[in-house]
């Protein structure tokens, strides 16, 4: 039977035995792809699901594609999901996820694999060389210690891939250690995913890096690989992926470009849309030069990264270009210098394979400790870092090196920042907000949980900072419009209507789900919003692998009726899924599948020891208010007033109420069909989803919700 969208096999790397075998994808087809398949593989292959440190040898790491990867589904062709037990979270490192872009997932599909399941631990440092069906474990002693860029370029050299961009076709038989039969030719370089020193030294900051700037940062997967002596995986593929209805796919792709994206001839640079803008790299500093291009993952409709003529900064964007900004301003003499320092430091974090997200709030805390006189040379928290040079490239590099190699303060911070804070006797910083690590030992993202409820709730009910941008364009777009005094293109009531009309099954046509007013903060409606978001994301974004930056597209001012592409009959997520796979699912079917995956994840967390009593934010969110206007003048969001009238309202100035949140949790658990006393799933809920095997294992562990047998 023809398999559309899928390659048909999952590669199992048994690092202990340094052997590989193929798993039939069909066995896991019900989970869709990406995260869903990864969770299911983890469930089957992890021999001890109670582990709470990703460096435990029983940990299983899955690097998974979706059937849409390697095709032209807009902003879904190039993402890749990573799952496994993480490192460095608090109080438990949950089974967690991360995601990265570029061309790795495309190349893996073309090599004939839907994903990679990694088990065991290699006896010594290795890298894995995948060329179509040929999988070889190679000695990585010459690579260990190298940065991520040097590693990739060395692997290219070891394979015999030509440097540069003006190369002829390379026959796979002509590469070093090449194929012994005709497997075709390629002009492409191998796609490599690698760790750097931060992962080699088993720090919670360790990331997986691909090409110059694609990173799976959250979760400490760099340390997971480091603990398994796995340095890198390289993949080269000359095959292809069959598409069930190629004409429908091309038609839908063209529809997105021609209808939903603003046109190049007369563009609306300020269009309100997630999918429909022109390439707008999310680099957080002024560009260093106009001599540059936008750069994107495979299949993206408008790239979010850049490459430059200046020799630094390639492909870094978003967080890695912003973590150092407030400190660089102290030393930069000009905007050009500000840009250069920030981008050179972005290069450093990429090369070390370091997740700089912790520094977004963490470095302010370290500065605070230094300025208070408790951290520094000869101080209670000893540190020989040149704090007087904070903001310079020199300091930035020394800091990253220390954190990546467990030196200086890196020795304590490597295993988790909250853990380090407690060790240093700084528990009060979690109460005052001096250390803004909001949930599970993860830093606050920039969307304060006291204001943007779905972000905080989704994070705390899950496993990490949720990093799912489905709704917070409401905040950024409206707040920017207010800041500029611009006409509001979509009023509050219309804004929520445009969202909820597409939010079946739990929130369809229920605008109250998006009301974040004080009166509605702990409501059943907001619980439904969080459910919808987590289920949508678990399937459509984390399993089907639609990019979080572009999807869902609820509203779109390029369209006369303002309706975005999400769920639309001509270019919705389901249109693309069905065109590629031959399935006939609806948007809601995908959300239901997401609910199952979310339930499977929760079951893993429960086996790891989760109980509702642990599910709480960092104390500062309950004990301090989100200061009005301090870091930005307002946090605008649609709210209903006491008369039920919708308006954009400033959400700053409040805190979370612990008792209110406890009640909200109970509502959430009930809606999910989980035992509200514990937060554990019940047999009844699991069996309805065809997951009795999960109920059986939870029961054996004495952790099945509801007490039913």
């Amino acid at each position, binding site marked *: 039977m023809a398999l559309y969208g899928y390659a048909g096999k999952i590669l199992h790397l048994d690092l202990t035995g340094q052997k590989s075998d193929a798993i039939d994808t069909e066995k896991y087809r019900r989970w869709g792809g990406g995260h869903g398949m990864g969770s299911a593989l983890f469930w089957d292959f992890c021999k001890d699901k109670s582990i709470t440190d990703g460096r435990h040898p029983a940990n299983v790491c899955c690097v998974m594609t979706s059937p849409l990867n390697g095709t032209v589904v807009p902003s879904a062709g190039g993402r890749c999901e990573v799952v496994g037990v993480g490192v460095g979270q608090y109080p438990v490192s949950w089974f967690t996820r991360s995601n990265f872009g570029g061309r790795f997932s495309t190349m893996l599909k073309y090599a004939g694999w839907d994903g990679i399941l990694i088990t065991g631990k290699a006896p010594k440092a290795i890298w894995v060389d995948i060329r179509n069906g040929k999988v070889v474990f190679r000695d990585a002693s010459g690579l260990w210690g190298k940065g991520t860029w040097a590693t990739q370029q060395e692997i290219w050299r070891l394979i015999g891939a030509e440097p540069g961009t003006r190369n002829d076709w390379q026959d796979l038989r002509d590469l070093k250690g090449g194929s012994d039969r005709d497997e075709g030719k390629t002009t492409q370089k191998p796609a490599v995913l690698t760790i750097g020193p931060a992962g080699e030294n088993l720090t919670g900051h360790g990331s997986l890096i691909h090409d110059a700037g694609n990173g799976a940062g959250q979760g400490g997967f760099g340390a997971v690989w480091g603990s398994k002596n796995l340095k890198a995986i390289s993949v080269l593929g000359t095959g292809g992926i069959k598409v069930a209805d190629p004409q429908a796919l091309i038609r839908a792709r063209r529809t997105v470009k021609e209808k939903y994206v603003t046109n190049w001839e007369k563009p609306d640079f300020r269009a309100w849309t997630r999918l429909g803008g022109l390439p707008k790299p999310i680099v957080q500093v002024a560009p260093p030069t106009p001599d540059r291009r936008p750069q994107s993952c495979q299949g993206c409709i408008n790239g979010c990264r850049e490459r430059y003529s200046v020799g630094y900064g390639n492909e870094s964007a978003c967080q890695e270009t912003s973590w150092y900004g*407030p400190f660089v*301003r102290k030393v930069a003499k000009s905007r050009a210098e500000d840009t250069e320092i920030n981008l050179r430091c972005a290069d450093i974090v990429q090369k070390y394979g370091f997740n700089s997200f912790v520094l977004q709030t963490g470095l302010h805390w370290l500065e605070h400790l230094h300025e208070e006189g408790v951290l520094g040379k000869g101080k209670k928290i000893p540190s020989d870092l040149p704090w007087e040079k904070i903001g310079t490239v020199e300091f930035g590099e020394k800091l990253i090196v220390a954190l990546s190699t467990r030196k200086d303060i890196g020795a304590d911070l490597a295993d988790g920042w909250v853990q380090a804070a407690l060790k240093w006797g700084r528990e009060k910083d979690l109460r005052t907000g001096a250390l803004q690590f909001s949930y599970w030992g993860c830093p606050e993202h920039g969307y304060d949980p006291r204001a943007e409820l779905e972000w905080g709730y989704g994070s705390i009910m899950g496993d990490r900072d949720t990093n799912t941008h489905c709704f917070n364009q409401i905040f950024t777009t409206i707040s920017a419009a207010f800041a500029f005094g611009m006409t509001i293109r979509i009023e509050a009531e219309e804004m929520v209507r445009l969202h909820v009309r597409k939010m079946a099954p739990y929130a369809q046509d229920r605008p109250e789900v998006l009301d974040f007013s004080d009166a509605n903060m702990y409501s059943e409606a907001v619980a439904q919003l969080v459910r919808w978001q987590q289920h949508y994301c678990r399937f459509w974004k984390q399993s089907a692998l639609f990019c979080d930056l572009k999807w869902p597209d609820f509203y779109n001012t390029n369209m006369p009726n303002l309706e975005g592409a999400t769920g639309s009959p001509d270019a919705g997520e389901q249109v693309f899924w069905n065109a590629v796979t031959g399935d006939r699912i609806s948007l809601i079917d995908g959300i239901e599948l997401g609910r199952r995956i979310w339930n499977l994840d929760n079951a893993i967390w429960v086996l790891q020891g989760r109980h509702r009593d642990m599910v709480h934010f960092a104390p500062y969110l309950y004990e301090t208010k989100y200061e009005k*206007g301090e870091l930005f003048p307002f946090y605008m969001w649609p709210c209903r007033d006491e008369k039920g009238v919708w308006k954009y309202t400033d959400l700053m100035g409040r805190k979370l109420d612990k008792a209110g949140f406890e009640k909200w949790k109970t509502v959430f658990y009930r809606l999910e069909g989980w035992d509200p006393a514990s937060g554990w799933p019940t047999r009844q809920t699991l069996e309805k989803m065809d997951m009795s095997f999960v109920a059986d294992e939870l029961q054996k562990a004495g952790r099945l919700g509801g007490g039913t047998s």
Partner: protein
Amino acid sequence: MNVPMTIPDEALARRILAAVPYKDRFPAGRLRPPVGILPGTVRSLHELHLLLTPDDRSLPGVNLSALADWVEKAVGDGELARKLRTDTANAASYVEGCLKTYELVGARLVQARTAVGGEESS
């Protein structure tokens, strides 16, 4: 009518160009999707000026009325503080207020650098 600020004397100029102690830092964020609101602080007018530099990728986050108080008390430049209050009071929007602040702070920095015999800033 736009009345220029008086040239600061050397002592004031040096305060304008200096960084205030950490305890007197002024909170100042930045909004740039998709990262959200990035926290930060400024400890000098130079840092503030950089923060407020207009670009089409992000928005600075400062409490403009509190800022004038900070300029007066922490930096010690009463004249600039008064100018900030009056010139931004009638700004049509927050962004216009930031732009006005950017201009005034920039002009003040130039005055201060000239007063201490340094080069004008670029």
